[in-house]
């Protein structure tokens, strides 16, 4: 069956207020063989037929006339930046005109306008009547021509008051379309959502089932079942062969996969296909069953969707939903079905009930599905009420493991303060604050992996040597917590951190670092290093040193705290010298095991702590000698770059002013390591 073709015209606002998001808009991807046209508005130049024929319609620029997308056209749009405020009504009229001129009204074709704008600029006053009249006229015309409209309205933050009036007026105009014509308006308020709302691929709807929803043998409702969600898989890549000689222009470079079936004991013998039989495992036994035997034993069920009954919605926990979700809509155009579904759905919603169904989607299949039907009441006048359908597990699919009750871990119960900190934390990290739209709503959140892939694909097609692009900010927001929220509520997060203590279990094997500390993500802290390498910069870990009196060693986790704790110990004077000694060897260990400078940051921290400690305890020599030793040892090695780093971090020798025992003047101390290099002893 030939699929329904779709003709689309994208009307893209490129006016000044849209400039910031144009790179995102440019990532539209079209399906092959769709009919696509692109119209820009808010441009400096004007290029459209209406302007030539009747005048007006300035700053509307037809970038691409309607035509079939062939692969060469699949370029990421490079949108010019317009300089005029865009008038979306003009753009709609131009787009409509293009569709009307191009297609015979009898042609079976879905016609659709996609408007992408922020609708922040005033539309022009019409020659006659009001703006609303004009919008209604256009809407009626669209209806008559069977053209639908999709608006994607992007508003990042609210603008000044003077603009508010225009915005309200524009919203009113756009609402005329959704009332009078087939129109769908989506508001988004972040670039992440914008990316999500621009869907990469349009899917041709195919029903899973058309037929009766049987409440009983006498009462049936005609329904169609579609998929509501379905995982969009990573594209299947083909294997490439570079065996063919380069001059062979007609080489397919494809790879064939060949399978050979051999007897395990006798690998030289190949078994032909007709001699193979499928074996089914049953415990250690393998039962051979031929395809025909199998076919004969198989049950063939009648296609049907039957009601088993209604039950309290709370009887079915959310986590029992097994698969992607289907939607049951009443047979289109069938008023009786629409009303019957509406009555059931509304009654279920009101009484908080769900329906349990038994479904066999296709005639003769052996598989039965039991699932739950939940109401989906429509808020739009033009869309009938419907049901969502989720598959439930069978008894065999559930593993009833027993877990100890959380309240029985007497040693792990949070105390009141901790619980309060957790409550505050949960409230603070709310993604649905009142003045914004819900953040990271699945409906408007794109798949970052797919987005990355298509971006990389485009880059590679232009330059085969290009590297994988970094996640841009709009995608990063999907994988990382929102920095704004966290930094705005620093006190709550800090309090939360302080309340809880985490400790490595010493009995267990040493963990690789990444397993337990916040590992920096590749994207934001590239310089820090790869996992598994010795130290890291992030000292903001929750790990608190053991009570200071007990510290006897400088550990790898919190060397600075350990050092400070040891220096503070007063029970014996040996601790000070031990701390200094250990810190020195730790720093040397850090640097000597450093890979491409990954541990420099930590070493600097330790060095600063050591310097402060030595000043405090009036041991300047310990520090000065150590520093000079380091210079002597490393000035000619690849660690020289660490030495050059020190002045910028204010690590100098300790001068007389800081500690009386030092024999260096301030100037001499500051000059380090330059002094040292000039006059090597």
């Amino acid at each position, binding site marked *: 069956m030939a699929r329904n073709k779709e003709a689309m015209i994208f009307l893209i606002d490129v006016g000044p207020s849209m400039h910031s998001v144009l790179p995102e808009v440019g990532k539209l991807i079209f399906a092959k063989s769709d009919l696509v046209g692109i119209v820009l508005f808010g441009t400096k130049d004007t290029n459209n037929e209406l302007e030539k024929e009747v005048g007006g319609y300035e700053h509307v620029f037809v970038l691409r006339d309607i035509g079939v997308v062939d692969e060469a056209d699949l370029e990421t749009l490079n949108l010019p930046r317009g300089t005029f405020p865009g008038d979306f009504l003009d753009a709609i009229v131009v787009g409509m005109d293009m569709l009307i001129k191009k297609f015979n009204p009898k042609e079976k074709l879905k016609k659709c306008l996609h408007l992408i704008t922020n609708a922040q600029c005033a539309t022009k006053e019409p020659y006659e009547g009001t703006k609303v009249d004009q919008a209604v006229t256009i809407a009626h015309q669209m209806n008559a021509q069977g053209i639908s409209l999709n608006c994607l309205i992007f508003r990042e933050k609210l603008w000044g008051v003077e603009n508010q009036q225009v915005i309200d007026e524009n919203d009113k105009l756009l609402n005329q379309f959704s009332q009078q014509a087939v129109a769908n308006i989506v508001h988004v308020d972040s670039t992440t959502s914008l990316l999500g709302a621009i869907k990469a691929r349009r899917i041709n709807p195919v029903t899973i089932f058309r037929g009766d929803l049987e409440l009983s043998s006498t009462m049936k409702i005609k329904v169609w079942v579609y998929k509501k969600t379905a995982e969009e898989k990573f594209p299947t890549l083909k294997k490439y062969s570079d065996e063919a000689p380069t001059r062979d222009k007609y080489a397919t470079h494809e790879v064939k996969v060949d399978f050979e079936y051999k007897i*395990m004991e006798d690998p030289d013998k190949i078994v032909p296909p007709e001699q193979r039989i499928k074996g089914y495992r049953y415990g250690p036994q393998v039962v051979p069953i031929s395809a025909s035997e199998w076919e004969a034993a198989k049950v063939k069920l009648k296609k049907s969707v039957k009601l088993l009954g209604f039950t309290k919605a709370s009887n079915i926990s959310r986590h029992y939903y097994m698969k992607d979700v289907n939607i049951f809509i009443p047979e289109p155009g069938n*008023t009786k079905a629409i009303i019957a579904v509406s009555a059931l759905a509304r009654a279920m919603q009101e009484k908080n009930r769900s329906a349990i169904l038994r479904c066999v989607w296709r005639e003769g299949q052996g598989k039965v599905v039991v699932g739950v039907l939940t109401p989906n009441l429509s808020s739009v006048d033009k869309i009938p009420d419907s049901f969502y359908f989720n598959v439930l597990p069978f008894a065999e699919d559930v593993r009833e493991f027993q877990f100890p009750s959380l309240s029985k871990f007497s040693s792990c119960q949070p105390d009141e303060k901790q619980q309060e900190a957790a409550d505050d934390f949960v409230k603070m990290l709310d993604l649905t604050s009142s003045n914004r739209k819900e953040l990271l709503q699945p409906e408007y959140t794109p798949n970052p992996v797919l987005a990355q892939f298509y971006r990389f694909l485009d880059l590679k097609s232009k330059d085969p040597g290009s590297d994988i692009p970094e996640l841009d900010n709009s995608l990063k927001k999907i994988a990382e917590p929102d920095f704004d929220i966290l930094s705005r509520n620093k006190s709550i997060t800090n309090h939360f951190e302080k309340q809880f203590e985490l400790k490595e279990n010493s009995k267990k094997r040493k963990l690789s670092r990444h397993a337990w500390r916040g590992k920096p993500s590749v994207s934001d802290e590239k310089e820090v290093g790869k996992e598994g390498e010795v130290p890291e910069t992030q000292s903001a870990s929750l790990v608190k040193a053991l009570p200071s009196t007990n510290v006897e060693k400088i550990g790898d986790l919190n060397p600075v705290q350990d050092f400070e704790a040891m220096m503070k110990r007063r029970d014996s004077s040996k601790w000070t010298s031990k701390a200094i000694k250990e810190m020195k060897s730790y720093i040397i260990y850090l640097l000597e095991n450093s890979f491409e400078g990954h541990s420099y940051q930590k070493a600097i921290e330790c060095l600063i702590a050591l310097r402060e400690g030595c000043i405090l305890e009036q041991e300047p020599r310990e520090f000065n000698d150590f520093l000079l030793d380091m210079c002597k040892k490393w000035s000619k090695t690849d660690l020289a770059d660490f030495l050059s780093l020190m002045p910028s971090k204010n690590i100098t020798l300790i001068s007389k002013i800081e500690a009386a025992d030092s024999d260096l003047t301030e100037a001499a101390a500051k000059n380090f390591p330059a002094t040292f290099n000039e006059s090597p002893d």
Partner: protein
Amino acid sequence: MDLDPEGIFRDDSDSDAEFHEEKEATKDLAVYLIDASPKMFAPVTAPDNAENGTYFHVVIDCISQSLKSQIINRLNDEVALCFFNTKEKKNLQDLNGVYVFNVEERDFLDQPTAKLIKEFSSIENIFMNNIGSRYGILPGSRDNSLYNALWVAQALLRKGSAKTASKRILIFTNEDDPFGSMTGAIKADMIRTTLQRAEDAKDLGISLELLPLGSLDEEFNLSKFYAEMIGLEGDELVQYLPSANEKLMDMKDQLRKRIFNKRKVRTLTFSIINGISIQVNTYALIRPTLPGATIWLDSVTNLPLKIEKSLICADTGALIEGRPKLFHSYKNQRVLFSVDQISEIKKVSNYHLRLLGFKPIDCLKDYHNLRPSTFIFPTDEEIIGSTRIFIALYRSMLHLKRFALAFYGSSSSSRLVALVAQDEIVNSGGQLEPAGMHMIYLPYSDDIRDAEQYHISVDAAVPRASDDQIQKASALMKQINLENFSVLQFANPALQRHYGLLQVLALDEDEMPDFKDETLPDEKGLARRTVFHALEDFKVAVYGQNHDQEETEHMAAKASGSEATRKRKMIANKATGESAKYDWEDLAENGKLKDLTVVELKFYLTAHNLPVTGKKDALISRILTHMGK
């Protein structure tokens, strides 16, 4: 030999496999020690006396059930069935009072076979004659059947290394004081040696589990002996004690649940905020059970086949070694990727699980679902304090009615997930829902379809049900009410049949076992008068009085009246007429069919109601087949 031939064709087969299967790196070796003393043959005291059966029966029933699910789900697990306090003895050590039950072609500790399950489930009929029951610890004798049983079990579990297998001894008994009949020094000595035996087993990495059977008037008292043997203290003791076993069914449920060893899928690091990461274990509580993997066999010898996959260059026919590069067609060119680049693209985040924020629970819609959920439970094994943070957040989420949104990144898939706190639900049959969090995999915008809008009405608003109609629907709902519906109540009919068939073939049985599809609606219930009336009322309310009649008329009109059918009929008539002009027999005999045009050939096909698709050759062969040539 586990190769699934279909699996190889999938490009990234590992991703799905990883998701559906728990890592089977560790297999479970279990010895079931079943007390067969006369006390076990006492009837379970049920208050209503409606149910009866002995303790022994309960145990046999539960074990048979768990074996049946094990043979389907857990192919590699091995099990030994061992009775103690028996008259006869059968064990490698030749110890008194211990009988290891087995069937042919099977080691004592081995995978369960169809035959084992069959014979074990009917063992009660022959038990008294063949094995016999008697107390194994009696005054005047130095026999210690419990000690012997532990010894036998431990010897059986010598198999397999402790690294790759989890080893368990499960003791089923209703005797809380096994040495009650003994006195004095002999008693103390017996207790000491038995405890020592248990200790030895534990040192070898074997875990001891007790499945106590209590009764209403006599609670199973762990502190008499078993607490010390298993090594329970304080808190644990409370967890261990089963709730009062009031009903036989409940007792069975509890036993059955405890027989399974819970297996984690993996341990995840859950980053709460920068610098705080806790650890959680994930468990696959709900996964579709599929008919087991198939293996290709040589039909002559029934020997398993090995599948060898080789990559061949389509241009030169050369064998390709190593992993070839991948390409994707884009803008008329082939864009090449290395395998490493693809895996780098897929790795969006370095974190296993990273908290993004919280949302009210009603933001989680019914259609925000893609896969079965995963259960997460905290662990302090590597980071002490994880459980405390987890519990604090879990309580806040329950109390504030929020779920957590997090980003879940693995090598094969990166998804937004909702973490929904689950309160513990307990009834007399034990734990129904464990406390913890369920991880629900959310769709991205790419995965959500706006199916509602496919058929958006062009003109006026669509009709909605009136209050009266809604009320009739409510009345109907009240009539067809499944009060105690539980998702566990249906067995998968397709799977049951599949394994029923395998069992018949594996055991060479003749008859297909009777098979009931539990998922069919209750026709009798629906025919009840009140239900019938509610249905009729609703039908009249939404469809009007004469619906059935209208429907028949409509169907009739459709059958004759529609333009398409009329057209089709016309063509068929014409084709029959045209077809009659040819002498098909003759044409076919003389091989002249190929001289006709495709249009002419189609006359015959249409006239005889055959498919008209395909190339000319296909059409000719179809005609010949139809004529029986």
